[in-house]
């Protein structure tokens, strides 16, 4: 009886794995097809003709390196800023329980619900006032702000899970908050930090609406913008667009694969601690 139960579980797991992986496989396959195969004759299967020239064309026509570099800079800077500001801020919110912190917590969490199109125009004006236009800062700072609510929500929960006794005993020994935080508390937060890196990286990497408005000079554009240029031509070759998208997705996949092992490790460590 137990064996049948286990078998069913495995079937479910494998089935879901297949439908999770198929889109990536599909995108990979269509990046080798031409419009005709993609749209009419063979949308789902293996390419009848493997058109490697799609990749060549995509690479030459589509300024991959510049866009890639910009996306990377934006992602890295945003991740750093979000992690730093959110970690510190949430610590205060989680440990100090008064009306002010409660209000701030509420305020920042509400930030999650702002549909970006709503604040876009006032935001552009604000960014301009600060002189960020025509630099990557015009997206980095907004992305940071946009990433804060989720980061806070994540960290808040984890901070609550750290017993207060840890700091209290350290305070008894006369240490100040700065030292206590960085030496004792921070190491406990490895898993949410890593989780946030992945999430924030993804948000930045795929973000389009804000980047479109802020980054108007071609040398500043991020990958999604570059892709849209490629995509919106009336004579777009979807295969080439697919090739460009595969090239644009590689970093995310690599980062995820790299960090996912970290997650497992840090999970295991925190599991053992208890």
């Amino acid at each position, binding site marked *: 009886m137990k064996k049948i139960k286990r078998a069913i579980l495995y079937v479910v797991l494998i089935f879901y794995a297949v439908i999770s992986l198929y889109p990536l496989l599909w995108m990979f396959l269509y990046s080798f097809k031409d*419009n*005709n195969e*993609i*749209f*009419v*004759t063979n949308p789902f299967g293996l390419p009848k003709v493997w058109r490697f020239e799609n990749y060549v064309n995509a690479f030459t026509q589509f300024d991959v390196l510049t866009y890639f570099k910009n996306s990377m800079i934006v992602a890295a800077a945003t991740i750093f800023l979000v992690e730093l500001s959110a970690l510190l801020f949430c610590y205060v919110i989680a440990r100090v329980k008064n009306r002010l912190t409660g209000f701030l917590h509420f305020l920042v969490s509400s930030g999650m619900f702002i549909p970006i199109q709503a604040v*876009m*125009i006032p935001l*552009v*004006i604000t960014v*301009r006032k600060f002189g960020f*236009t025509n630099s990557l800062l015009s997206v980095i700072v907004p992305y940071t702000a946009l990433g804060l609510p989720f980061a806070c929500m994540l960290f808040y929960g984890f901070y609550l899970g750290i017993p207060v006794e840890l700091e209290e005993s350290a305070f008894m020994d006369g240490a100040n908050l700065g030292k206590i935080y960085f030496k004792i508390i921070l190491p406990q937060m490895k898993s949410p930090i890593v989780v946030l890196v992945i999430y924030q990286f993804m948000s930045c990497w795929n973000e389009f609406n804000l980047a*479109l*408005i802020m980054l*108007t*000079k*071609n040398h500043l554009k991020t990958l999604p913008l570059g892709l*849209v*240029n490629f995509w*919106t*031509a*009336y*004579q*777009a070759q*979807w295969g080439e667009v697919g090739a460009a998208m595969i090239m644009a997705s590689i970093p995310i996949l690599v980062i995820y694969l790299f960090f996912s092992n970290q997650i497992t490790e840090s999970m295991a460590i925190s599991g053992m601690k208890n």
Partner: protein
Amino acid sequence: MKKRLLAVMMAGVMALGTALPVLAEEGTEPKDPFGYDYVSQDVDADLTVYRYYADSDKDNLDYAIRKMTEKYPNLSFTMEHRTDSDGVALRTWAAVGELPDIFEINASDVYQTLKEEGSLYVVDEEVEKTGFYDLFSNGAAAKEARISDDGHQYGFGCEVSNLGFLWYNKETFEELGISEPTNYEEFKETITVLKEAGKVPVALFAAEKWPATSLYSLACIAEGEPTGLDAVNDGNAAITDEVFRKGAEKFVEIGNLGAFGKGALSTNYQQAYEMMYSGEAGYFLSGAWFFLTLEADGMGDKIDYCNYNVFADEAVKEDVRWNALGGYQTEAKYSVNVEPPCGLDPSTVAYLGLEMEYWTRVSAGVNGNMTTVIGDFDFQGGEGYADYYENYGNYQTFSNFTGDLSNGDFVVAADNACEMVVSGNYTDAQELIDDIAAGGF
């Protein structure tokens, strides 16, 4: 309204007087009509230009840029490709004062606001001095369209207007034993034949909102409203008027015949014409820019367009033939920033803009495509394209592709209602009319 009527009449008059370009043995590039009369050779700046910069437009613009940078060695261009069709980017730049030097305005409300705010440079003088519109065979009509209510021109441009048609695959039709329909009865017949052969009769790329609505507009044109849905948009007619109800009946009728595939609402532009290319679909609705795609794909001789309005009854088909879907010359086209960020004074930028525009149109001709620049060009197009070129001068009235209509509320209401027809949710014309009428039109 009066002004538009005038424009339309002038278009007709000028078009009739169009001299077809002589088919020369080889394309000869026209001489530079501007010289250094307006801008000195050592002009030093980097011009930012925002317009549709892809497909053949890119080729034409690159040609123009080459010509300009050869002529003005210290001039450089930064091109920004227009990726949206509703003016999103333009709107936001306008709101924060970040407009480029020269930009294409593709949303009429943005144009109005910018004009009223004084952000658009008045180009009357530059146009006069260069005689820009005299360089084109349809120049007078285009110029007329650009003149605003206050008598000034806030933008410039003179392009071959894109008219809307249904293209069809000649081979597919031959195999099925049908031919190009010239009236509604024949059209319905072809749809039935195509449907029975398991094909999608009309490949509508209804992932975008305007094809379905424009097709409906085409039906209304056939029923006797020369500008189709423009009349309702402009407030000169109500959707409950007889002509629109009759148009709706035909539109819904072909829907009920199964003209639109089940996936019409999620079919995109490339997919739709690929379906027609490969014989999966019979018809494809698009605008005359599609001829350029056909040329680029080498399909110019396999695909033809329906010369007659497919919704027209036999009795009136000749009358309505020259009432075009599309081709409406908007007042807004390419405008000059009244405070150009490149640092030059707007007058210079205007002269440069006019010259650049001229060369892009020349490039079209040099590449063997249709152009209205007066000169010797070697037109190289397939049968359908050549046909269109010949007939281009005969069109009397023009309308908008419904995506370009100015009344946003009306467009949304019409788009939603037409989607319901294409998706098979509305099977009666009255449902379509009621839906749009409920929005107050």
